[in-house]
């Protein structure tokens, strides 16, 4: 079935540095959603991208949808300890909703 692959699986970041996590699909996606799960918590919806090449920002987080709508990225600038958690992308094909494996972000103070 349709899958989305997330890389890297783990990301160790020094506080204040930037990093990017990627979500890749072998097929064209109708849209992509991003969720964040804090340690011990539950996934929380962050944002949705629908249009080819779309870029959205939430403070220090920048989300991008690829031109071919087969990949997406999340870029975080000036990482803070509050960014700790696992970030998931999610694709939808009709009733079939599939989450990527997630990128677990650890921040070194």
């Amino acid at each position, binding site marked *: 079935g349709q899958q989305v692959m997330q890389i890297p699986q783990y990301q160790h970041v020094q506080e204040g540095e930037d990093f990017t996590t990627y979500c890749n699909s072998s097929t064209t996606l109708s849209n992509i959603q991003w969720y964040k799960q804090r340690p011990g918590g*539950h996934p929380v*919806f962050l944002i949705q991208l629908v249009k080819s090449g779309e870029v959205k920002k939430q403070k220090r987080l920048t989300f991008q949808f690829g031109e071919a709508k087969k990949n997406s990225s999340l870029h975080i600038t000036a990482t803070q300890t509050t960014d700790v958690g696992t970030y998931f992308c999610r694709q939808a094909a009709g*009733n079939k909703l599939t989450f990527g*494996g997630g990128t677990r972000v650890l921040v070194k103070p």
Partner: protein
Amino acid sequence: DAGITQSPRYKITETGRQVTLMCHQTWSHSYMFWYRQDLGHGLRLIYYSAAADITDKGEVPDGYVVSRSKTENFPLTLESATRSQTSVYFCAIRTGTSGGATDTQYFGPGTRLTVL
């Protein structure tokens, strides 16, 4: 979100026992889901329901049973628990009624299940 509750929040059981995890929404969203989360596997869909009395299998349904007699409740039963079912279980709803791809999901707080 406060609109989705799961019970119990923590459960320890033994191999072979039947366990039921409860999920309740205070809204009336049509779609409800059960996921399990294990290290290295992300979120994997067990079952979902498009409406009361309508359920369908997800990616990993074996060993689980669901029912949905009321819109607001979606219990998940492990008929004979196994150690491989030790996991964190999340219930979720989907906004919207048409099952559109742009619907977002809201998750409950999760149930941490340990099978000894």
